[in-house]
């Protein structure tokens, strides 16, 4: 709340007062209650349900509370309102799998119970027999639901409460996840369709294509097809050509430099799971020799020097990330608006103390460092981390996004996630706490999306996808339907999909099949209007301009080794130089910092090319809060008829106009005689857009507080000052 307000900043906890007694609603409600149920998905089973549940809104306003029925199924907790929804509501951005009153079970973050005005966190271990008067559910997509059980019958209330607790909070096995029952009952989408879109990297051909695209020269390893080398590695992967085959099997997949991406100069980015720490000296020696061999092999890749980057030393660890995020998200999970106002005074410093933005900055900075080494110094980079599948994924994907415009297209980005995260063995279920079995939860993938969002908002014309796309993707992690986020490793996926041949095809779709969640029109919101694909002309021009890569920076004295000639000398020289190099890179010195800064300044001096290298600015004001994701459900901060959306809307209209005119010009020029075609008829639905569009677009606009004052406590309630929007915002859906 505003500091200027007089007393009364802390209003007492809202206690629910209903002006409608359950008796009153029963007679009329009974009639149509039976028919009203959510549209169940294939494979969805109802566990329990309870009538006369009251869904309370965040502001202590009884008018917005609704009675309805609460269902708990194997997929979601669903609330169906008794009130018949108005027919004419247009939902431009409706999710087909779950509605605005549905909470997928895996999306639940925390459950609180309201016991005699006291809020208690409910954990599965203390399964209470006494049910609370109110269940408060915090979702991972930052929605907050409050269901009051006061008006339901005793036993149904108890049943639904226990049902929800059991199905949400108790550990379960992977097979119980809804995706399996869903997958058994749906028909698979023809494979052909999938091929045209995202590269899944589950075949050797996909990997070979990628290698060809980046013009790298590494060796494809096929030995892991049945996961003989390691269960954590993908079926197919690339290693430097000089890695001996017998070395691959030594440490169960650890210590192998896995190829990620090749720079156009030939130097490449690798990632590696670090070797286990050993005590015995002899083993340590063996390990050291092994590492030496590996790094040598990497150095043979185009004869560039090697730089290793141990991410666990320089970046916050998994626990730090989790802690920081759980602090950070508390700012947005709000029970009552009064609470939000209280946080208002110290808003910026609270955001800062969570250090989430600072972690984002660190990751981006690390990625810039790696980019600098690749682009400027042409060294091979090996990212090292304990498991090789958390921060390695973050940094390597960020580096590729910054360097390679292909990954900034929608398809390219999806392929990148597929390559680095899904096939790279990021443990999605564990990090997302899907099964409630482990305490290793950490929003690593979300951290990556946050970093991408920072890049996106700084260089929006460079990206084909929009921030809405990123927000939706971050939500989809918590919908347990998609194979993308279901398995910890490719091995697990293969083994589970294989073991059930008799039960018919198990079809668990990847998240990239957006048509499962959104219709075509809504998918239009994924596209960034400002993105301009590179024209062919430009491409040709660039190709001509790009200089033949030179190696002046690395091993300047080394010509490509001629057969037998000077070989030993060069080997020695290389060894010497490499030794120096590696040791130099181990310590991150001030000079390295300075060189990064210089690199950044040099990049800025050049005109910005959205199809070239993009670097983020990391100054204090430049790293921002992802407002769309974090503030979308808080009506108090939604600017109705204003904000960026108003601009976006205007842009959409103009883009549409441009397209129309282009078409018209083409038509006029090409067929100069016929004027039969009518210009397209544009449907314009006049939806009032708020700044959190397309989310929460059709919420009840119960604007209480136009201004954060203490007036709410007094009789003069400024909250009534409904935000009126005097703008004729029109959405033009056709563009999409």
């Amino acid at each position, binding site marked *: 709340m505003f500091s200027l307000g007089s007393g009364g900043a802390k209003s007492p906890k809202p206690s629910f007062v209903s002006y409608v007694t359950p008796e009153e609603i029963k007679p009329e409600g009974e009639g149509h209650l039976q028919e009203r149920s959510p549209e169940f998905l294939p494979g969805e089973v109802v566990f329990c349900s309870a009538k006369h549940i009251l869904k309370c809104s965040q502001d202590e306003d009884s008018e917005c509370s609704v009675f309805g029925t609460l269902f708990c199924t194997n997929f979601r907790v669903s609330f169906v309102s008794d009130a018949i929804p108005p027919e004419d509501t247009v939902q431009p951005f409706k999710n087909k799998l779950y509605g605005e009153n549905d909470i997928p079970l895996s999306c639940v973050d925390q459950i609180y119970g309201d016991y005699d005005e006291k809020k208690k966190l409910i954990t599965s271990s203390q399964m209470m027999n006494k049910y609370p008067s109110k269940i408060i559910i915090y979702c991972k997509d930052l929605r907050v639901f409050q269901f009051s059980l006061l008006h339901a019958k005793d036993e149904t209330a108890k049943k639904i409460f226990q049902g929800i607790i059991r199905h949400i909070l108790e550990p379960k096995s992977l097979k119980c996840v809804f995706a399996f029952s869903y997958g058994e009952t749906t028909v698979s989408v023809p494979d052909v369709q999938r091929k045209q879109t995202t590269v899944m990297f589950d075949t050797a051909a996909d990997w070979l294509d990628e290698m060809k695209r980046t013009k790298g020269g590494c060796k494809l390893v096929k030995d892991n097809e049945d996961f003989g080398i390691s269960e954590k590695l993908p079926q197919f992967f690339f290693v430097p050509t000089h890695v001996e085959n017998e070395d691959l099997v030594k440490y169960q997949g650890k210590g192998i430099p896995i190829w990620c991406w090749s720079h156009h100069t030939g130097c490449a980015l690798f990632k590696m799971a670090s070797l286990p720490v050993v005590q015995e000296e002899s083993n340590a020696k063996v390990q050291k020799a092994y590492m030496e061999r590996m790094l040598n092999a990497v150095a043979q890749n185009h004869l560039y020097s090697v730089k290793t980057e141990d991410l666990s030393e320089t970046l916050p660890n998994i626990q730090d990330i989790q802690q920081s995020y759980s602090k950070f998200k508390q700012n947005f999970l709000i029970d009552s608006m009064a609470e939000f106002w209280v946080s208002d005074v110290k808003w910026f410093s609270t955001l*800062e103390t969570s250090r989430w933005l600072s972690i984002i*900055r660190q990751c981006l900075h690390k990625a810039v460092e790696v980019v600098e080494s690749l682009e400027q110094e042409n060294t091979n980079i090996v990212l090292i981390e304990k498991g090789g599948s958390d921060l390695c994924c973050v940094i390597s994907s960020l580096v590729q996004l910054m360097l390679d415009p292909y990954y900034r297209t929608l398809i390219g980005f999806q392929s990148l996630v597929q390559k680095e995260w899904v096939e790279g063995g990021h443990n999605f279920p564990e990090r997302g706490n899907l099964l409630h079995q482990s305490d290793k939860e950490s929003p690593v993938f979300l951290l990556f999306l946050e970093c991408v969002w920072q890049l996106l908002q700084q260089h929006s014309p460079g990206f084909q996808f929009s921030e809405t796309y990123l927000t939706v993707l971050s939500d989809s992690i918590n919908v347990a339907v998609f194979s993308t986020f279901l398995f910890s490793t490719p091995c697990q996926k293969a083994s589970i999909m294989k073991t059930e041949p008799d039960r018919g095809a198990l079809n668990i779709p990847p998240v990239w099949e957006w048509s499962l969640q959104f219709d075509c029109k809504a998918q239009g919101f994924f596209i960034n209007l400002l993105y301009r694909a590179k024209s062919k002309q430009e491409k040709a021009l660039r190709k001509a301009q790009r200089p033949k890569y030179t190696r002046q920076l690395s091993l300047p004295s080394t010509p490509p080794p001629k057969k037998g000639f000077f070989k030993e000398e060069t080997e020695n020289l290389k060894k010497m130089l490499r030794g120096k190099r590696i040791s130099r890179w181990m310590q991150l010195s001030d000079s390295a910092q300075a060189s990064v800064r210089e690199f950044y300044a040099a990049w*800025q*001096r050049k005109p910005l090319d959205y199809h070239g290298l993009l670097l983020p600015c990391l100054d*204090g004001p430049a790293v921002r809060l992802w407002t769309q994701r974090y503030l979308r459900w808080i009506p108090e901060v939604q600017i109705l*008829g204003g904000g960026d959306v108003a*601009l976006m809307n*205007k842009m959409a209209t103009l883009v549409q106009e441009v397209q129309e005119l282009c078409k018209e010009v083409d038509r006029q020029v090409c067929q100069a005689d016929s004027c039969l075609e009518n210009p397209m008829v544009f449907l314009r639905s006049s939806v009032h857009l708020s700044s959190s569009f397309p989310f929460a677009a059709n919420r009840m606009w119960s*604007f209480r507080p136009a201004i954060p004052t203490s007036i709410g406590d007094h009789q003069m309630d400024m909250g009534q000052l409904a935000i009126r929007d005097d703008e004729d915002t029109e959405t033009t859906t056709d563009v999409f």
Partner: protein
Amino acid sequence: MLTGTKSFFRARQSVPDVKDRMLRYGGLDMEGKEPVSLHILPGECILQRATLVRKKLSAREGGGWLSGTLFCTHFRVAFVPKDSPKHDENADPVFLEDHDVALATIEKVVAVGPSRTKLVTANSALKFIPEELLLYCKDFQVFCFLFDRLTPETQVVEITCAIARAYQPLRPRAVLAFQNSAVGSVEMKQFLSNRQRDASMSWFEAPANWEAELKRTGAVGWRVSGINERFEMASSLPRFNVVPKKVLDTELKNTFAHFNDGRIPRWCWHHHSGADLLRMAAFQSDIYHERDDVSRNLEALVFGGHRQCVVVELAEDMPTPADIHLARTRLRALCLGDVSMPVSLPDDKWLSTLEGTRWLDHVRICLRKAVEVSCLLREGHLTVILQEADDRDLNCIVSSLVQVMCDPHCRTVAGFQGLVQKEWVMAGHRFLSRFNYHRCHDKEEAPVFLLFLDCVWQLWAQFPSQFELTADYLLALHDSTHLPLFNTFLSNCELERNRHTKHLPQCYTPVNGWREGLLPPSPHGSLDPPLPPVWDWALQYSPQRRACFTQPGPPTAPHPPALNGKFNTNKSTDRTPGSVFLLSRGTFSCPLQLLPWRGGVGPTPSRKSHRRAPSTEESPPPEHLLRAWTLSEASAPVPHQDPWDPLLPLLLAPCVGLWKECYLRGALQARAFCHPEVTSCHPVERLSQEVRQLGDELDLVSAIKGTRSGGEQVVQ
């Protein structure tokens, strides 16, 4: 993280011999043989020049470097790009071209050498050849010039010293010399006195403007009074003020003494719901019992045409000018990064430091006050009076913000300029003291007007499509306040301003008929250069920049609201006094002494009725206001599209932004930061250009087709 290197330097004092050299070179520059020449103002002379200099371009100029020639004159530091188009000799002079900076705006000159950075002052000598020259300006801009190896070294040293000597920071009376150098020449005076005033906006100097404003807003029951025409009643008030019709001038005369500085309640604006907005200073005199008709007149003044009146107290919870000044200073330190500060702020402390400046808090408080007042006004049938101790600072902010929120006219360029004239310039905001141009009002310095501009920017940022004016316009106005050349900002009230400009406009008063200017010309009046108003944008900015002042696709102008005939036909015959409430700290109350004449001692008829009033007023106030607000909530879910509804900004922390284009441009430019969001022009602009282009193309094609088909017909 990726910030520039830390810079240390200490100023060294030594006697330079550069001075002599500079004088030697001074005459040389008048030859003007070089291909690149500066388009100088009449009477302006070039002190020094340096060739083959590169200027770092800011992001909004496209980033990168531009090479050309750097000049230093008496008046400005000018930069002429190498291949800039030849100037039209007959074109009107412009004070500053796109790459120029006025000397009076410069705050610091810093020379960057190969290994050191040094603050250059008038007395310091340079011991090294600078590679870069940084000019830190008061308006948050930073100019950066890079000297190539090709630049003659003597020129480098000399221009640096020339600038350091010429900009003369912080010296009292330096401003006059600066003004003289800019507009002191005979030609310039001639030119300026021949300039036409912008007739499309209201200046509120003549009664006709006020009458037009009354008519435009649909206010009834008010008249323009010329009682203060000789500034005898209140020296800080304008000559014409709007007061209720029923108070005659003779009656009005006695009321001035009851207000601080004679600033009686005056009409500002009329909401189409029927409510009126007034402003006044604090009550002063407490002797009322002697003459009853005075309190009757005071009542009439306060209540206007309504039975109900809300006094909005602005002192209680609002920042004082000193607070504003402090916040601004902190914000400056944060955004510009003081070069003399060795340690730069770590990036992860940015947010809390920003919060610590409290600038955004002040912005929010002002906006919140304005929102409250706007909502009160919407209910109609009452008079809202803004009261501040001296009625010259926060009253200006709040009353003008209310009008920006509620009146679409005030969101156009002309309307906004009229608003500033009405609520700031004419109302006697102490621009001269607050901006402290002369460096002799250090205690009173406070950027109140800049706070207002930031508030308007917040509104603009939340509702960009509701404004005809753009952020570029606000930025231009922001920058112009730092240029002490405009009579708009160089006086504290109209009286002072009239002393500066000799000619007084013809004025009409109902009492005395037509009159000529009344004041004797001040003794030094003829010496002062005639200063232009700030609204003469053609003097300051190139047409390209002025083109950005309005939106490409402005919002459709709403038709004036149908007057719903709600306004009270004054029941002034009713002798019972109206009810009055105080809105302070967001709550209503009815303190007994709110209108001091009512609580006065002595047997007066007004007191008799007053005895009845307080008893009812103890209970919660405006019944109908409460009712109206609950009603509006019930109908809230469907936001309707009345363009006359106020823009109510959201004021929670995440919704209030920092005016980056203004405050961060210097810092970012100094680091050659290519601001990612701002490309050379806004995407919307680019798109609308494209639309225009395609439309033209289409026309062309169809025209060609038309002629071709026409030709074919002829052939056939």
